[in-house]
C-alpha cells in the first residue's frame, strides 16, 4: 500500500511538472534568459510554478505537520541543518550552471526520460553519476560512517 501511494504521488508530481510546461527545457531557458525581456522572448511561467507550488505547500505543511506522525512512518524527516555553510552556496552554484546550460533540473529530466528521448537518457545517466559522486565525497568529507542497511 505504501509503495502504491508513493508511486501515485510521484505520478502526481511528474504530471504537475508536465502540465506546468516544465518538462520542456526550452521553456526553462526562456525563463532564465532575462536579456530577452525587451524582445518579448522572456517566459515568466516558471515563477508561477514555483510561486503556486510553494504557496500550496506552505499551507498544506501547516496542517500536516501538526499531526503526530505520517501515515506510513513513525516520524517526519525534516532537514536538521539550519546554519549556513559553504555547501549551501557551492552546491547550488554548480547546480545552477548545469541548469542554465541544459535547461534540465532533476524532476523534468525524469519526465523527459518517459518520452523515450535518447538525449534525456544521456542527461539522466550523467546526472545520476554526478549525484552519486557528490554523495560519496560528502559522506567521506563529513566523516559520517553510515551503517549499511539492506533496502
Amino acid at each position, binding site marked *: 500500500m*505504501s509503495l502504491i501511494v508513493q508511486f501515485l504521488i510521484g505520478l502526481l508530481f511528474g504530471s504537475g511538472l508536465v502540465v506546468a*510546461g516544465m518538462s*520542456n527545457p526550452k521553456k526553462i531557458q526562456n525563463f532564465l534568459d532575462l536579456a*530577452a525581456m525587451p524582445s518579448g522572448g522572456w517566459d515568466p511561467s516558471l515563477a508561477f510554478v514555483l510561486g503556486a507550488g510553494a504557496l*500550496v505547500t506552505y499551507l498544506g505543511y501547516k496542517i500536516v505537520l501538526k499531526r503526530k506522525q505520517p501515515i506510513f512512518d513513525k516520524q517526519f524527516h525534516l532537514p536538521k541543518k539550519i546554519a549556513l555553510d559553504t555547501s549551501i552556496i557551492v552546491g547550488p552554484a554548480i*547546480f545552477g550552471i548545469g541548469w542554465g546550460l541544459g535547461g534540465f533540473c532533476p524532476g523534468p529530466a525524469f519526465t523527459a526520460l518517459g518520452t523515450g528521448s535518447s538525449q534525456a537518457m544521456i542527461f539522466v545517466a550523467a546526472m545520476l553519476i*554526478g549525484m552519486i559522486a*557528490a554523495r560519496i565525497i560528502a559522506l567521506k568529507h563529513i566523516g559520517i560512517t553510515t551503517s549499511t542497511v539492506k533496502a
Partner: protein
Amino acid sequence: MITEFTPFASSIGGTMIGGAAILLMATHGRIAGISGIAVRMFPPFIDHDAIGRIVFIIGVIVSSIVYAAVTGAWAPMSIIGGTSLLIAAGLLVGFGSVWGNGCTSGHGICGLSRLSFRSVVAVATFMTTAIVTAFITHHLM
C-alpha cells in the same frame, strides 16, 4: 525559439506539485526533493526506503506517458545542445544538487514553503548562476 507564457497552466501544474509535496509529507514524512530521492535510490543505504524512492521516481518518469495518453499528444519538449553539453550539464546538475542538499523541488518548493533560510540562500544562488549561464550561452557565444 519563443515559448508561450502559460500563467494558468503553470499555476495549475505548480499546485499539483505542491499537492504531491504535501501528500508525501502526510504519508511518508518526507520532503519531496527529487535530487535527494533520486540519489538515495543507490547505495549506501541508510534506511529501508530505497524501493519506495525507486517507485516514486518511476511515477515521475511515466507521468509524461500518462499525460500523452490522456491528452493524445506528447507535451512539447525541445532539448538544447549535443551529447557533450548534455553530459556536462547532467554532471553539474547531479553533483551540485546533491552537494547543496536539494534542487528546484527540495529547496525551491519545499524549502521556501518551510521558510528555511538555507533554502532561500540556495534558490538565490542557483537562480543567479543559471541566469548568468543562460546569458553567456545565449548572448555571448
